[in-house]
């Protein structure tokens, strides 16, 4: 009997969402306990700041340039490497419960397995003799009660009256809706009268517990529990709104209250920042096209933060239930738990919401915690070295006692900073590419030695000379762009040279984008 792996992810969650990372509002004792007894990574970055590319990195152990899922809507090929397949081949029972999103959501032609499974009433699919993505069991959910997912079908069958209680994410033009349903008018904020026990966070935990319950006590297992929250829409069950009164929430430190100061900060960054803020350039589908960030009010920022904190508390309580169940099955000592998210969220930083081609901590610095199985005897630690999701696949294999697969591009996560040095965790890379009906934006970013450097690739707004350079110690909010400061020219050039040397070479032919999301 080997070590079991519980991999818990959220969607669009900031580093500072958790108490263990300095969060002061949402109470997250269960996740904090994982950090206290495990390894908390202080500088973990995703390899892309939207869902599909980031999740594809998690499952393949590859950078975006290698797996080729460069934006939401680009499907991960069915024959792409999968650490779940590697574990399955080694005898592990494997499941993914919640949001997968390796394939597009918007799929009326039902071309993709993730969307076919629930429609067919099944939980696994054999393609060309292989289990889809290596999972024995896939049970899907997304951000509401509609769509081709198991949760949506369950809700429609058992509680159809609850389906329209959720916020309607897309408008009639299939754009991400800019409407708000609360007093502040904040986009994608909504009062959801769904009973808590029917909400997707609790459903995901319920289904994960049911799958774990179905396993033989001696089984080795890999269970990826993927909560759709706190990704917008911000519509937690109304019964839970008492937890955080938005009127009591302080504005985030990253939200410059003075409009002139806010706009001066944006003006010192590459053009995509201010142009989006003013509604002049919407480069990607991940934020409402008709919402103009410069209309964001302080009350809207407070409310969205409050709703997010509430969603984070519900996730933490679901994590507590999962951990309790693992203990009840007698697996506590032999279960590794890894917790992370796919990317962050502005939540008001710089006067912005949602996400896009903006490589700063709000979107790039993510929670990452590894609570090794107590039986492994690994000491708790805080790791300050830069690490990325690209190391997750190798880590899962290490836990399972398997050699590092040839397909992964990074070593396992370190257990402390000394281990990080010996494994070569010196830098972490993040890529962005978006092409939306002729609007082209590309970014390449390196984080190393306490610096973040981002190069803008030639595109609709950039000629290839623009970029961002931040000193994380002196400027933790990344408000002072040093890119054009001659005093830091050599630092910039050194970082960029390292970045170009370290990035994998992408395929000559870019994969096609098959859906907006």
């Amino acid at each position, binding site marked *: 009997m080997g070590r079991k792996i519980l991999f818990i992810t959220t969607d669009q969650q900031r580093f500072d969402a958790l108490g263990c990372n300095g969060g002061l509002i949402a109470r997250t004792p269960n996740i904090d306990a994982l950090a206290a007894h495990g390894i908390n990574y202080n500088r973990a970055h995703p390899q892309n700041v939207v869902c599909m590319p980031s999740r594809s990195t998690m499952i393949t152990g590859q950078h975006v340039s290698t797996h080729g899922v460069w934006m939401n809507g680009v499907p991960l090929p069915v024959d792409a490497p999968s650490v779940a397949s590697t574990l399955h081949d080694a005898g592990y029972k494997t499941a993914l419960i919640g949001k997968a999103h390796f394939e*597009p959501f918007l799929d009326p032609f039902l*071309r993709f397995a993730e969307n076919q499974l629930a429609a067919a009433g099944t939980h696994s699919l054999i393609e060309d003799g292989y289990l889809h993505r290596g999972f024995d069991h896939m049970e899907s959910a997304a951000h509401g009660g509609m769509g081709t997912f198991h949760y949506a079908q369950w809700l429609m069958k058992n509680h159809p009256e609850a389906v329209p209680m959720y916020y309607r994410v897309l408008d*009639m*033009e*299939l*754009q991400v809706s800019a409407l708000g349903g609360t007093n502040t008018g904040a986009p994608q904020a909504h009062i959801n009268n769904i009973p808590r026990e029917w909400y997707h966070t609790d459903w995901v935990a319920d289904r994960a517990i049911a799958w774990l319950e179905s396993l033989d006590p001696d089984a080795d297992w890999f269970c990826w529990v993927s909560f759709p929250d706190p990704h917008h829409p911000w519509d937690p069950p109304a019964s839970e709104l008492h937890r955080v009164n938005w009127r009591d929430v302080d504005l985030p430190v990253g939200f410059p209250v003075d409009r002139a100061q806010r706009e001066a900060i944006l003006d010192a960054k590459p053009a995509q920042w201010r142009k989006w803020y003013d509604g002049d350039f919407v480069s990607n589908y991940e934020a409402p096209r008709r919402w103009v960030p410069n209309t964001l009010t302080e009350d809207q920022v407070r409310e969205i933060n409050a709703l997010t904190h509430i969603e984070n508390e519900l996730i933490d309580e679901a994590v507590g239930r999962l951990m309790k169940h693992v203990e009840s099955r007698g697996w506590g000592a032999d279960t590794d738990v890894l917790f992370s998210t796919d990317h962050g969220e502005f939540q008001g930083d710089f006067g912005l919401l949602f996400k896009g081609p903006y490589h700063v901590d709000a979107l790039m610095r993510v929670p990452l915690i590894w609570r090794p199985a107590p039986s492994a005897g690994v000491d708790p630690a805080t790791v300050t070295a830069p690490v990325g999701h690209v190391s997750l696949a190798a880590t899962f294999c290490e836990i399972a006692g398997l050699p590092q697969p040839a397909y992964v591009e990074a070593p396992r996560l370190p257990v402390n900073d000394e281990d990080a040095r010996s494994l070569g965790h010196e830098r972490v890379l993040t890529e962005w590419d978006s092409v939306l*009906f002729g609007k082209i934006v590309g970014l390449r970013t390196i984080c190393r030695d306490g610096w973040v450097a981002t190069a803008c690739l030639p595109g609709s707004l950039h000629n290839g000379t623009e970029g961002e350079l931040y000193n994380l110690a002196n400027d933790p909010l990344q408000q002072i762009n040093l890119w054009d400061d001659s005093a830091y020219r050599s630092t910039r050039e050194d970082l960029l040279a390292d970045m170009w040397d370290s990035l994998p070479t992408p395929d000559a032919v870019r994969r*096609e984008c*098959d*859906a907006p999301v």
Partner: protein
Amino acid sequence: MGTVRRHIYIDAPVDVVWDIVGAPDRLHEWFPIDSCEVVGNKRWINLPSGLRFEEDIVTLDHDLRRFQYAIVNNMIVTHHLATVDVIADGADRCIVIYATDIEPEPMGLVIIGAAGSGLKKLQSMFSPVNGVS
């Protein structure tokens, strides 16, 4: 307006490929739909998700080898024109080009994703293994 395009080369004579592409009632043989019905200049297509689209056949030009159709009477799609061209590239090879202009824009990506899948299927139908002749 969303404007999108895909193309694929097929190792088969242009007339052979056009026999399929230029037959509106054979769409289900290569496009990822369940079925279709053609009555005069009208076509209805049935998607695997259960959606049903009504279309007007705008152009069916066997000389130009151009097929055009438009989704109509649809709650979401307010404007649409799709054009499929089959063009000879020598005696035994041709190129199939599928282009769509559509409103709302996001629907263009969904349609062209399906079209890309359809074009690959069409190509595979003429591969030496599956060879349609």
